[in-house]
């Protein structure tokens, strides 16, 4: 996007002051950050900050950060019907700045993937407006999980970018402004921040080194994109292995809904009794109703729908976006698929040597 990269001094905040820092941020603009749940599910989810909330250091939220720019449902337009008259109403109100705190490198990269869809012509004004008002504080991943494979897609979890990149150590939180907007907001927090010295810089650099070495040891570190890309349509499309890979797929939409880069949606009218809400909502290529038209569905079997999802991420999207894959290796689908089928298994399967009964 339009951020201007800046080079300024990294700041730090004692962890004992974290609560005060979050409070100050929430005063500046509505603040959303990962907080552990209090019901049956205690995992972290992005929550609007209120005093008393505790920032969760969980590696990743259950749902991705894309919700903030591309929510699951949103009203596009309302029609008010009275008798035989119809009035058209734009439901949007003026968008305000908001802060997203604790975004991981993978999720941050996903915004790039979404931008290429929603911000290219014709620009999606609903998305663009929210994107322009979101201030993002990213967080380096000190304890990557076994399901992480962001490095496969060239993402560095030690350099998470954003308006401000953050590093959490035992004692401190380091904040490194990456954009002017980031700088401006850090400037407003100066009471709570101190400057960093060479020891601090070394501490952060050590953390980055540590992250890098940890990434190398992860079980999925060797996963390769070699067999995939915009030019692999012919080799992959008719491969018989799609059948067995998709065999157990339940056709639920879990993978697409937890995915930070899935961006398919559908638009529908809801009759309220007084008129119509025209809203858009996430759709899933896993559903039999996906892109159904009057003539029927273009993809008739679950295998075809399953193939669509992975071909899109690994072939079609890169073909249209300078080779950029639309997967960021966050690992959410690995953890949540009811039958544990996922992009890693797909990639590994196609990376195996093909026996002679394999693809042509």
């Amino acid at each position, binding site marked *: 996007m339009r951020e201007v990269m800046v080079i300024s001094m990294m700041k730090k905040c004692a962890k004992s002051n974290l609560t005060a820092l979050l409070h100050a941020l929430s005063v500046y603009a509505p603040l959303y950050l990962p907080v552990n749940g209090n019901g049956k599910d205690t995992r972290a989810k992005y929550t609007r900050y209120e005093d008393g909330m505790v920032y969760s250091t969980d590696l990743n939220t259950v749902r991705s950060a894309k919700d903030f720019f591309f929510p699951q449902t949103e009203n596009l337009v309302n029609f008010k019907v009275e*008798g*035989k008259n119809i009035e058209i109403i734009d439901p949007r109100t003026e968008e305000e700045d908001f802060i997203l705190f604790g975004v991981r490198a993978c999720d941050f990269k996903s915004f790039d993937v979404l931008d290429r869809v929603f911000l290219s012509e014709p620009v999606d004004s609903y998305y663009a407006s929210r994107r322009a008002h979101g201030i993002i504080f990213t967080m380096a991943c000190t304890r990557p999980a076994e399901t992480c494979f962001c490095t496969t897609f060239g993402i560095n979890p030690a350099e998470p970018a954003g308006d401000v990149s953050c590093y959490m150590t035992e004692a401190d939180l380091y904040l490194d402004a990456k954009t002017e907007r980031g700088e401006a907001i850090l400037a407003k927090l100066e009471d709570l921040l101190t400057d960093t010295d060479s020891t601090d810089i070394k501490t952060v650099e050590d953390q980055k080194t540590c992250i890098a070495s940890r990434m190398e040891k992860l079980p999925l570190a060797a996963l390769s994109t070699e067999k995939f890309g915009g030019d692999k349509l012919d080799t992959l499309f008719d491969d018989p292995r799609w059948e067995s890979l998709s065999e157990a797929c339940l056709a639920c939409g879990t993978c697409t809904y937890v995915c930070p880069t899935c961006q398919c949606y559908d638009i529908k009218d809801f009759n309220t*009794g*007084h008129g119509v809400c025209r809203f858009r909502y996430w759709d899933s290529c896993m559903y039999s109703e996906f892109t159904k038209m009057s003539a029927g569905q273009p993809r008739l079997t679950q295998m075809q729908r399953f193939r669509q999802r992975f071909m899109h991420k690994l072939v079609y999207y890169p073909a249209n976006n300078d080779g950029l894959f639309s997967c960021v290796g966050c690992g959410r689908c690995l953890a949540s698929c009811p039958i544990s089928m996922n992009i890693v298994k797909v990639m590994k399967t196609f990376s195996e040597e093909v026996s002679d009964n394999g693809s042509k």
Partner: protein
Amino acid sequence: MQRIGVFVCWCGSNIAATVDVHAVAEAARHEPGVVFSTDYQYMCSQAGQNMIIEAVKEHHLTGLVICSCSPRMHEATFRKTAANAGINPYMVEIANIREQCSWVHKDMAAGTEKAIILAKAAIAKVHLNTALTPGESKVTKRALVIGGGIAGIQTALDIAEAGFPVDIVEKEPTIGGKMAQLDKTFPTLDCAACILTPKMVDAAQNENIRIISYAQVEEVGGFVGNFHVKIRKKARFVNEDVCTGCGLCTEKCPQKKVPNAFNLNMDNHRAIYIPFAQAVPKVAVIDPNYCTMLKTGKCGVCAKVCTAGAIDYKQQDQIIEEEYGAIVAATGYNPISVEKFDEFAYSQSKDVITSLEFERLTNAAGPTAGKLLRPSDGEHPHTIVFVQCVGSRCAANAAKGKEYCSKICCMYTAKHAMLVRDKYPDTDVYVFYIDVRTPGKNFDEFYRRAVEEYGVHYIKGMVGKITPENGKLKVQGSDLIADKQLHIDADLVVLAAAIEPDKSARPLATMLTASMDTNDFFTEAHPKLRPVESPTAGIFLSGTCQGPKDIPETVSQASAAAAKVIGLLSKNTLKGNPCVAQSDEWMCNGCSSCANVCPYGAITYENKEFRMPDRSTKVRRIAKVNPAVCQGCGACTVACPSGAMDLNGFKNNQIMAEVDAICK
């Protein structure tokens, strides 16, 4: 898009006094799809109806909403009006703004507001109405009566009298049923055989009646007016058409030790037998379980003595297939088994008998030729104890016994007691009772005679224990009036066993898709208003298969069932109600939930081949509703989780449109 006309009726001042009818018509006019709206003094009058017909023609209306009195009053009227105007009668919806609005709301503003909402709901519904046409099916003019007891015989005779052919299927070798086993009948004390056997002969001689004895219904298909039935006629090893019923074989057969079921196994007959003297058909039958010839291939005495040459050891079961327009169940009853009641010592002593056994013991054609003798030693009993309510009126969850009152026991026990005292005045007769129930013409008088004229000792109380001891039966019971425990040394104890439906009724009900209650009595279509019909169209109920009854009641019900059958058979075709359930075969998954709740058995399943959207073919089990049988209750629509089942005239989307309009 429909072109809807709205007609608001004033009903004189009935509606107009509390509902602003002009405002209702005006509000309706602004609803989408409404192209015409008006109000008038009496919509149901000829002038009002003409107004509707004119409006339909002038504005090319496709749907009508009449805001008027209850649809229960004039829905039929306005449907006819629609038909006269040239649109489908089911394109009419009524908004009830009289009974459910103007008459119950005194406030004009509130009444008008509600009337407008009701009108809008009707408009919303009519938008989704579709033209419906009732289906037609032909009627096969032949009836089947299952069971040849007094109920079945009476029903068959009445139907035959009206000129329709009727078949009686009887599982025993002869018709006659339980009544043939009885001695005398209450409250007149005339002999059962004297009044029953002429009817049996009538049935045999009526050219419209075919008696298929020693046979059972095996399969029932089809629906009202068009039943297809398979009947298995068991091999009797005697050619029915040839046998003259002379009975010589039954005297010469060397196998003499076959328990005589007609006499409740109290004596024996031969392996070839005629159940009783007046059996119809009077044809011998061989019991294959005892016949030496059939078991070992050696004997053949009966064939040798039969001058008519009727014996046929090679005879096979025969399957008869027939079409019927109506079926009558007349499967009757049996006394329950009293062996479970240890305290009454039925299994321990031969001198504890059931009332039906008592009937045979006093019957001139019975095992003792009508002399009342103790089964154990053939002595004349001097003290007889009758115990009422054995197995009747038990708790619902009781392990033994029935919850209901068997209805006939009070009267036959009084009869038995009276007969004993009449024939053997030296006998002491005690009747233990809980209540004496005698609602019936001349019933209580009869019971009082037993007490007052014949000196039967009625004891309010119950027998707790019977112990056989030294050839006597020690009866211990309570006398609640005297507040003491009685100990009677009896010679004979007669148990008034509860009655239960015949065991063949349950599988038959399944075949007929007729419902049953928890006691296996057939359920009637309506307990008060349709007592002789089963909820399944075309299935009728006669006699005790529907509930305990005495003979006069059974005969009344039998004739009533016949009248219903005649009514049905006199029609050439049946016109259905078009508001029936319909299954979307693409959505149905054949789970059977709908068939489980259907009270009419209107739903069947078939395997059908489909070409699937992914171009494969697939055989799927799907539900089919028979519109001739469906009555349109809608139970299936809710039982169906996938929403494949919907109800014409009350479709899901129609009801939801009404909900939406009301809640707006």
